[in-house]
């Protein structure tokens, strides 16, 4: 992934992608849970103004599997999926994890296993 870049119109988001453009829900969720709320909020605040453009761009590509996408678009998709992952932290919980929630590491996403 290191030699891949975001599509040119989104090149300025590369520092975010370096941290958040992760391929699986499990990885994105772990990144969320290991980040501070300030880091999550910074990610949200930076990407939100660009999110409409990101989604408009992604609207021109087919859906999953991500492997069907060109590498740059795929990286942008992973970044946008991470935005979906952290949105509840910002807009609902105001903290990285679900308050007093069940351990997400014990809430196994079968859909990831089936896809592989």
């Amino acid at each position, binding site marked *: 992934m290191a030699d891949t870049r975001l599509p040119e119109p989104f090149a300025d988001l590369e520092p975010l992608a370096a941290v958040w453009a992760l391929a699986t829900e499990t990885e994105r969720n772990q990144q969320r849970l290991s980040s501070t709320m300030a880091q999550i909020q910074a990610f949200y605040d930076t990407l939100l103004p660009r999110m409409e453009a990101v989604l408009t761009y*992604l609207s021109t590509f087919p*859906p999953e599997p*991500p492997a069907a996408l060109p590498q740059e678009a795929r990286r942008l*998709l992973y970044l946008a999926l991470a935005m979906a992952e952290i949105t509840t932290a910002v*807009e609902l*919980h105001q903290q990285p994890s*679900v308050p007093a929630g069940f351990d997400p590491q014990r*809430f196994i996403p079968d859909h990831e296993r089936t896809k592989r």
Partner: protein
Amino acid sequence: MFSSEVRLFGIREEPYIIGIYLPTGAYLSTQRLPKIIQPQSAPYGAASIVFPTEIEQDSVIFKDNTATRDTMQDRVHTHANGKRWTLDHPELGTGTLPITPYLSAEYFEQERQKIFTRTWISTGKKVEEIPQPGDYLVLDIAVGKTSVLLVRGKDGRVRGFHNVCKHRGNRLAWKDRGACGTGLMCRFHGWTYAADGRLIGVPEEDMFFDFDKRDYGLSPVATDVWEGFIFINLDPDPPETLHQYLGEVVDLLRGYAFDRLPLSWSYTAEQKCNWRILRDSQLEFYHGKALHQQFAGKVMINKQQPSCHVLDAKLFRRHSMMSFYGDRRNTQRTPMELLMAQFGASFKTFPGMRDMDRWPLGVNPTRSRQWFFDIYYIFPNFHLVILSPFLFVAHTMLPETVNRSTWNARGYFPQPTTAAESVTREYNKCLARDVWLEDGSTLENTQRGIESGVLSQYPVQDQELLIRHAHKVAEELLANDGQAG
């Protein structure tokens, strides 16, 4: 929702309205009602009342007679302040429920023998998960002390078998899913079975004595399908078919998009709690305002009925349903929420009420514009939560032991057509997952709480009626040796 027209649905007979209460508290008898319109083709009977001025729909209380005209028994029909659903079912009483069924190993063993191995139980799986002939799934059904093989035959039919080789009893299929092609071979001595359970290959068969392969086919497990959901019954000779067992639920949900919404996410969690704790956690929404305060708190606010969030409740012979009040437009329209709605759909704020009149009778049965979702509980281990025409959730819960259970929570959501819609689906998934993590937080804590011995009984609120009913159903099955009462 202000309107000059108030619509009535779900009335089984021709509505015979004897009067209504207006929001002002004034009572209008039939003679003084402005106008009643009877639609031409309402399946269960319906009516609209047109008022000269706009009124708030939920503030009208209908008094009607939908029982018999002879008795002229007045009863509050819909949206009534003060309505107590439990009182419609005097056989259930209003007393507390015992804690023993949640704790006792002896009680659990009775449930195991007389409920879980005698009745139809959901596997949680759908037929499309084994699409091709020879495709199979393996389910470990601890409560039945067996492993079950679900396999699609050449004829397209899905069959269930005990996953046990009939030679020495070894486990036949070892993977939890696969494709058996021309046959499934036991790793122990190489016995091979066809997808329809026939024994078709025995190495060195001539070395057995008086041996006929037809005597050693796989042991079948009663298997049937409803709306694509695969159910099994460990009773070798079930007294009723799956559709008979499901009863009214089949008609009420017929026509819902079960066949058009693909499995989009699925989570499984082992819980150190009794299966009833798990089951109850998804059987009421009294907890919505507290546990899911951020997600549901504002949606559930109902000025007309601050204490009641139930639009409808139906108890069937085994199963039950509840329909919940909620106005998702009241939730905060956050920036991402608005974007998701723009590029796809979000069940948080958009219930998707278009074409509501054509929905299945059992989805939002009161046809309220302030509809949040419906729970259908298929006794004993399956909950369908219908949140929208474009999203439903299926919970399958299975006991392992008296204090261990497995919870599988699944979301069925439209297949994305673009990469942007993959993002909106992810958003819906993460939202549902986080709500479930809130639900999950209560389970093991509740188990520890009742194990402490502090509680001797459960008080049951009106909106926990389905729990009360489910307890009665289980008690009847245990008393009648697992037979339908």
